[in-house]
């Protein structure tokens, strides 16, 4: 009987203590700069706000144009002066967005372990752990190739996507990790896409990353305004 009481006491009063100290991350914001180099050079600067509970990512772009871009799971909207001037179906959604992965603690495998890909090979290579992922299902219309991922110190370092014919589509490198409230976030992502055999470079940098900023409500609400 004593044992039963003790068990009941533990379950009722002590189990909530397990959740104390376990932080819930739902919001992230950052200054963002994207430098692109292919046949021309382009730069995009602005600020990004993402609340995973609202499932919307807002970009307040300052350059090359003052505009707001809103990414949802299914759509992309472009707003100028609070009016939608362009919209189209999102092909990628937010699932594999880096900040969605960070907030959902899925950065270790880039969300591949809960996707339509399966781990087929793991290999230790010098300071890197290299894993190979292949699509679980073969779709005749939308064929996907394998993905090879490299991790350094349990953090994703590189991601190489292949075409089904074996050629490389793109390489992504995640570097300059910063620890923000216990979350390891890469502040520089270099992407090299191989389109028409000529590499296209895209270097994205994140600055002043803030987690769970609940003071600045307007930037996370559905009524979005330009932020200063």
């Amino acid at each position: 009987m004593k044992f039963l009481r003790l068990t009941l006491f533990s379950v009722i009063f002590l189990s909530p203590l397990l959740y104390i100290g376990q932080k819930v991350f739902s919001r992230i914001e950052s200054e963002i700069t994207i430098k692109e180099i292919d046949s021309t050079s382009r730069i995009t600067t602005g600020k990004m706000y993402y609340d995973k509970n609202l499932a919307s990512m807002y970009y307040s772009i300052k350059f090359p144009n003052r505009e707001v871009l809103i990414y949802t799971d299914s759509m992309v909207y472009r707003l100028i002066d609070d009016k939608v001037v362009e919209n189209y179906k999102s092909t990628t959604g937010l699932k594999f967005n880096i900040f969605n992965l960070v907030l959902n603690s899925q950065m270790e495998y880039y969300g591949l372990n809960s996707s339509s890909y399966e781990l087929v090979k793991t290999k230790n290579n010098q300071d890197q752990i290299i894993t190979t992922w292949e699509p679980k299902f073969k779709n005749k219309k939308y064929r996907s190739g394998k993905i090879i991922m490299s991790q350094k110190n349990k953090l994703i370092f590189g991601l190489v996507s292949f075409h089904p014919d074996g050629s490389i589509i793109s390489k992504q490198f995640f570097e300059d990790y910063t620890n923000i409230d216990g979350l390891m976030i890469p502040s520089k992502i270099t992407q090299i896409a191989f389109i028409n055999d000529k590499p296209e470079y895209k270097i994205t940098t994140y600055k002043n990353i803030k987690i769970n900023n609940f003071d600045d409500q307007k930037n996370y609400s559905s009524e979005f305004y330009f932020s200063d």
Partner: protein
Amino acid sequence: MKRIFTVVLAFAFIFKASASNVDLFSYDLSEINTELSDLEVVENIIAQNQNSTIDEINRKIINNNLLNSSFDTNYKSSLMVRNAFTSDDMDWGAFAWGFCCWPVGLFVVATNNDKEQSQKKSYWIGCGSAIALDVIALVVALVLDYNYYY
């Protein structure tokens, strides 16, 4: 001798395989150094002129003599760039509005803010197809008429 050769060959193969995987995760930005340094100059100009208008920033970028190459300020944000319209993007409902009844479709699709860009494009493709077919039919009718009377 044959065994030794096989072992050496196997080692060479393993070494090559591991080397190629490490090579896979390396990159070299040296060939875009000039463009990168130019973009860094542009980034600094933007950062130093936070309160300026886009036109003022563009003027400062163009007039800046520190750039090694010309910089075109007239482009769309990369976050909004999307792939070209393909047959997979075709909305056949919107196409039918353009093809069969374009005046109604103009209000239902073309000027409707709730419709996506791909639906609007499909509507205009529908309109274009209808006009092209009309022109062909008209030409055929004229030729037949001409042959009938002369």
